[in-house]
C-alpha cells in the first residue's frame, strides 16, 4: 500500500497524494523527512494551482515507474515511443497554460515555492518563448515595470547593442 499524504491548499481543499508523487517537491520532501508533515500539510498554493502541480507530478511519476519496470529488450524503441507520448502530453499541458496566463504564472510561483526544478524549468522556457520577440516597451507594460533609465542611458544601450534591436 502506497503511503498517502494529505495536502491542504490555501483555500482549504484537501488533496490525497501518494508520497512518491509529492516527494518530487524538494520542499515537501524536506517537510516529510523533518517529521513536520503529520496529518495535513498546509501549502500556500490555491486549489486550482495545486491541482495543476499534481497533474504534472503524476505524469512525471508515471514515467519513472514505467522505466523501472522495463527490461533492456526493446527498451530503446519503447523509450522512443514514450518520449513521443511525453512530448504530446507536454504540448497539451503548455497549450492550456498559454491560453490561461494567470494559471501559468501561478504555477510558476508554486513550482518555485515547492521547489520542483523540472516544472520550473519547463515553465521558464514557456515564459521565455512568450516574451522572446517583444520590445522593451511591451515588456514594461506586460509586467508593470517602471522605466528607470534616462533617455541618454537608453540611447547608450541601444547604441551598444544596435544589432539586437533590428527587426
Amino acid at each position, binding site marked *: 500500500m502506497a503511503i498517502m499524504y494529505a495536502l491542504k491548499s490555501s483555500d482549504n481543499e484537501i488533496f490525497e497524494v501518494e508520497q512518491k508523487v509529492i516527494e518530487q517537491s524538494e520542499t515537501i520532501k524536506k517537510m516529510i523527512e523533518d517529521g513536520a508533515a503529520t496529518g495535513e500539510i498546509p501549502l500556500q498554493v490555491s486549489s486550482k494551482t495545486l491541482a495543476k502541480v499534481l497533474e504534472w507530478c503524476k505524469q512525471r511519476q508515471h514515467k519513472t515507474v514505467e522505466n523501472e519496470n522495463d527490461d533492456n529488450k526493446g527498451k530503446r524503441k519503447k523509450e522512443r515511443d514514450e518520449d513521443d507520448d511525453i512530448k504530446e502530453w507536454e504540448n497539451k499541458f503548455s497549450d492550456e497554460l498559454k491560453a490561461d496566463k494567470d494559471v501559468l504564472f501561478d504555477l510558476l*510561483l508554486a513550482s518555485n515555492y515547492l521547489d520542483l526544478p523540472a516544472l520550473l524549468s519547463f515553465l521558464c522556457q514557456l515564459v521565455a518563448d512568450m*516574451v522572446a*520577440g517583444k520590445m522593451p*516597451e511591451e515588456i514594461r507594460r506586460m509586467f508593470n515595470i517602471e522605466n528607470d533609465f534616462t533617455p541618454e542611458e537608453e540611447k547608450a*544601450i541601444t*547604441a551598444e547593442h*544596435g544589432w*539586437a534591436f533590428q527587426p
Partner: protein
Amino acid sequence: MTLGTSPLHVQSFSNERYYVAEVVLQKLTISLIPSAVEAIENDDLLQEILSRLPAQSVFKFKRVAKRWQHLISEPRFSELWKPKCIAGLFFVTNWYSHYPTYNFMPLDNEIKATKMLHFKCLTANENPCGISIVQSCNGLLLCCSNYHNRRDSTCCNYYVYNPTTNKMRTLPRLQNSERKMTAETGTWRLSGDPFSFDNLILHDGVYWSGKIVWLNLQTETFFSFDVDKEEYGEMLLPKPPIEDEWRHYKIKYFNEWRGNLNLIRYSNTGKMQIYIFQLKEEQSEWIIKHHIDGDKLMRNNAHLFGNQDRYFLCILSLVHGEDSYLVLYIPGHVVAYHFRNKKIRKLSDLTLDLDDQHALSTLGWTDVHQYIQTFSHV
C-alpha cells in the same frame, strides 16, 4: 574596453515606432496578471527566464529597466545562459597575402538575421596588420595583433574577445613560451608555471571537464592542464583508433560539445574517407559516430562537385545539434553535410585562389574557429 562602433552600431535606432505602439497600448485596457508581476519581481525567476532567451532578446531586454540590466550583467547569468548551437565559423582565406582575410559564416538563423559584423570592426580597429584569431574556446576568442607571428607571444599583443557581447580585453604581454590565462573575478592572470611545447605538433587545446586538453598530432597522445589545481601532465585517454589501412589518416578536428569529446580522422590520399569519433562517456574507447565515403558523396552530389576527375574537399568543422552536420569546403562552395539524411546543403559560395587551394590540399584548413554565443565576461 568596448570596441569602436561598426557601421551597424552607428545606424541609429528609431524609437518613433514604439512610441506610437505605446500610445496604442495605453488606449487598450491591459489587464495585468498579478502573479506575473510577482514572478518577474523575483530575481532568481527572472534570471531563469532570461537565461532561456535567444541572445538577441537578452540584449534587447537590458533596456527594460536597471534591474534587468543588472541581472543580465551578473556573472551568474553568464553561467546560466547556455548556447543552443554553434552559431557560426570564423575562417581565414588569403593566407599568403600580407593581410589574411577573416571570413565569418553564420550557421544559426538568428545570427543570419542580425548580420553580426562585430568581427569586421575588430580587424579594422587600431591594428594595421589586422588581428588574427589564435584559438576559440567556449565562445571566447584569443586574438593576436600579428598574424604571421601569432604563435610567438613575445612580439605581439594578445586579446581576449567575446564577439557576442563585443567586449575585448588586452592581456598583459608575455615573456616566453606558451602559457595559459584564466579569468578570475574580472581579471586575467597567469595560471600555473609556464611550460613549453617545443617540437610538438599540437591540436588547439580543448576545454573539457575542468581541464584544457591538448592532442599531440604526432604521437596521438593527450595531455592536459587542470584549471583548478593548476597542474599539467599526460592525460590517460584511449588512443584514437587506427587500423592498418588508415596509415595515412590524419586527425583533423578535435573538440568538445556538451561534455563529449569528438575527433575526426580522414584520409586525403587515394579515396577520401572521413571517420567521426566520439569518446564514450566512461572514457574507455572512441566509437565511430559517422563515416563518410568521399566517392559516394561526390557521385550523389555531382551538381556541386562538377565534372571533375579528382575531387577535392576539406573539413572546416563539426556542428552538433538535433541535426548534426559537417561543414566542408568543396571548390566554389562551403557546404553542410547532414548525417541524418546524408544530404548536402549549400551554405555559401566561396572561390579560393590557387595558392589557397594548394595550401588546403596539403595542410587542410588550419584556421577555423567556432563562434559560440556566450555572455562570459572578458
